[in-house]
């Protein structure tokens, strides 16, 4: 190839490793010509880290023989923000604010696993009020629905099924509206706190939740009608990203890929936390161990989540004005907020209480906000079933007011290791489907 007609954007240069092309989508002629000149068909393609089909900043290094992938490797770390390190310099309660940002599609799960670990270290697991437990379950299951919706939506978009994307995000928006109503934020809630949850349900929330349940019961079947028997959709997903049960266990794969391999392992059933044993739901499985099976597992799980949300809403109706925070005033964060004339801020009732009525309440407020509480030395690991699999926080305390170490075992990080085994030997277009079926969220992978 002559260097005189060098394309400004899609140029080629010689390196010790061979000729390197930079592809940005403008001009494929040079590349096609360049590959034709090369004797062998082996091409190493660097895909990402900025690419619309890689679920965020994931870099894939693919070695291709023609259109067949002979080797697939992941490059991660582009979204590493040092959340675990940051948490070591904040109080135990502030840690929630950091870890909620990891897996940004499932923020309540990050909060919950960390908080459950802290509560075990504090020895207050049995003191969490019932209403806080039910609210946690309600929020987590709503979050599972929104997370699975994004997975299905983006997965559809990546194979060209744009309608799946638009209706997926349409419904997710409704869930985020509920989150905004209950926690004040659409993402990064920091709502689940050690000892309970930050706020009581706002007035009218239960009606909104019931309306959402009724609407979802109409709309969830749309996905089934659109996708389940769609020949193009099935043609792209069936048999792609195959990973059997033994492969899943060896690679530590959990969540929908494990259940799509036919193993009904769900921590909500096998090692219940937050009172999941009191809810009636089924663990969903599929027997094909491929991308289509994972899609069907997620679809069915949204139904089960809806069932749990309904039961939780019914329980909450009978828990009006019940406490949502542990009684111990040395742990319960004073987060009494109210809408004032200038927006949301500290509740005037609370300020009146601490400034005018109770010296003790003022001291607790001051100590918690400045110093925080101390957590007895030790370590705990309380994993939960996030939409992507086993999410756990290994929290270590040295008896101080800040986490000595908080390490998150994120299912996206672990499951992403299956990229190679799922896509090698397949077509390059199927790599996208395989990764979409893992549903990695790079915020959780890189932390």
């Amino acid at each position, binding site marked *: 190839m002559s260097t005189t007609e060098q394309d400004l954007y899609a140029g080629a240069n010689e390196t010790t490793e061979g000729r390197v092309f930079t592809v940005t989508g403008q001009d494929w002629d040079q590349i096609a010509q360049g590959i034709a000149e090369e004797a062998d068909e082996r091409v190493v393609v660097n895909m990402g880290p900025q690419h619309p089909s890689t679920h965020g900043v994931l870099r894939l290094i693919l070695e291709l023989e023609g259109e067949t992938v002979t080797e697939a490797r992941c490059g*991660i770390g582009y979204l590493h923000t040092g959340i675990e390190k940051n948490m070591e310099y904040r109080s135990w309660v502030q840690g929630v604010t950091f870890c909620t940002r990891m897996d940004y599609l499932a923020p309540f799960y990050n909060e919950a696993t960390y908080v459950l670990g802290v509560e075990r270290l504090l020895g207050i697991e049995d003191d969490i009020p019932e209403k806080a437990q039910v609210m946690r379950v309600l929020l987590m299951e709503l979050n599972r629905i929104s997370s699975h919706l994004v997975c299905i939506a983006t997965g559809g978009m990546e194979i060209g099924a744009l309608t799946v994307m638009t209706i997926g995000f349409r419904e997710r928006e409704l869930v985020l509206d509920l989150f905004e109503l209950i926690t004040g934020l659409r993402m990064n809630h920091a709502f689940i706190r050690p000892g309970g949850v930050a706020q009581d349900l706002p007035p009218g929330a239960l009606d909104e939740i019931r309306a959402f349940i009724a609407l979802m019961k109409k709309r969830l079947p749309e996905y089934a009608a659109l996708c389940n028997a769609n020949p193009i959709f099935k043609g792209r997903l069936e048999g792609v990203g195959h990973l059997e049960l033994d492969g899943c266990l060896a690679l530590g794969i959990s969540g929908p890929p494990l259940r799509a391999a036919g193993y009904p392992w769900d921590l909500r059933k*096998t090692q219940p936390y937050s009172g999941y044993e009191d809810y009636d739901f089924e663990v969903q499985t599929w027997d094909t161990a491929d991308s289509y099976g994972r899609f069907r597992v997620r679809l069915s799980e949204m139904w089960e989540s809806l069932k749990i949300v309904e039961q939780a809403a019914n329980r909450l109706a009978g828990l009006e004005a019940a406490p949502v925070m542990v009684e111990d005033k040395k742990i319960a964060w004073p987060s009494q907020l109210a809408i004032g004339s200038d927006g949301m801020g500290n509740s005037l009732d609370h300020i009146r209480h601490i400034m005018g009525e109770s010296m003790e309440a003022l001291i607790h407020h001051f100590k918690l906000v400045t110093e925080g509480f101390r957590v007895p030395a030790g370590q705990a*690991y309380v994993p939960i079933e996030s939409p992507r699999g086993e999410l756990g926080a290994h929290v270590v305390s040295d008896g101080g007011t800040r986490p000595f170490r908080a390490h998150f075992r994120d299912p996206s990080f672990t499951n992403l290791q299956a990229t190679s085994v799922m896509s090698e030997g397949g077509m390059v277009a199927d790599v996208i489907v395989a990764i979409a079926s893992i549903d990695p969220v790079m915020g959780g992978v890189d932390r």
Partner: protein
Amino acid sequence: MTEGGQKDVVPEPKPPEQAAVDQSPENAPATLEPEVHAVGERQGMFGVTGSGDTSGYGGLVQPIVFPGPAQRPFDGWHEEVAAALDTAMAGGGVEHAIENVVIDRGEITFHVRRQDLAQMAKLLRDDPALRFEFCSGVSGVHYPQDAGRELHAVYHLLSMTFNRRIRVEVSCPDDDPHIPSIVATYPTNDWHERETFDMFGIVFDGHPALTRILMPDDWPGHPQRKDYPLGGIPVEYKGGAIPPPDQRRSYN
């Protein structure tokens, strides 16, 4: 004083029935009983010294103690696992692999000698009475004050067959940061060990390709270590600079 100038009839104070220290043991100074494991000490309350702190708390010295070894027999299934592990270790020729066992808050931790880790991982996964077929990865912890055992690698293992969870903890000194890799037994630990190497500098011997995973390839140092300099960006405001977070005055 009561009204009318009458003298109060104050009942004779009763002497305490037992020594004050016994009445409120939480007020007694922490003693290093054998059931706890000291890994260092905490000084002061605000993380700084020599700052002119006149509160008196600056001189406070408290030992940092972790839960100590448990005594046999353990309760419930912990004993079953420990007994099965004893049998398996005798069969595998690693009788002395376990340094001690800690049971705390319902979670059991086996502290394993590092040279026996690879063999122990095989036994834990393959022994029919143990069957810990699922490894949730490795988490590093840096205890700079735990002399000779500064770096810990903590593995969480799950037996789906028996629905049990255990923790295996291995330590190595800072000046010899080597721990055997268990990727051959648990392939899932490939990325987890790379992450722990990246963050703590623990070298997992036998790992197929131990390279950095989250930080850039040419990054100096291992960020999650407690002695990693945080640096801090010098933000000056009216002449005052903000120190990095580990040097700020804060509760500890």
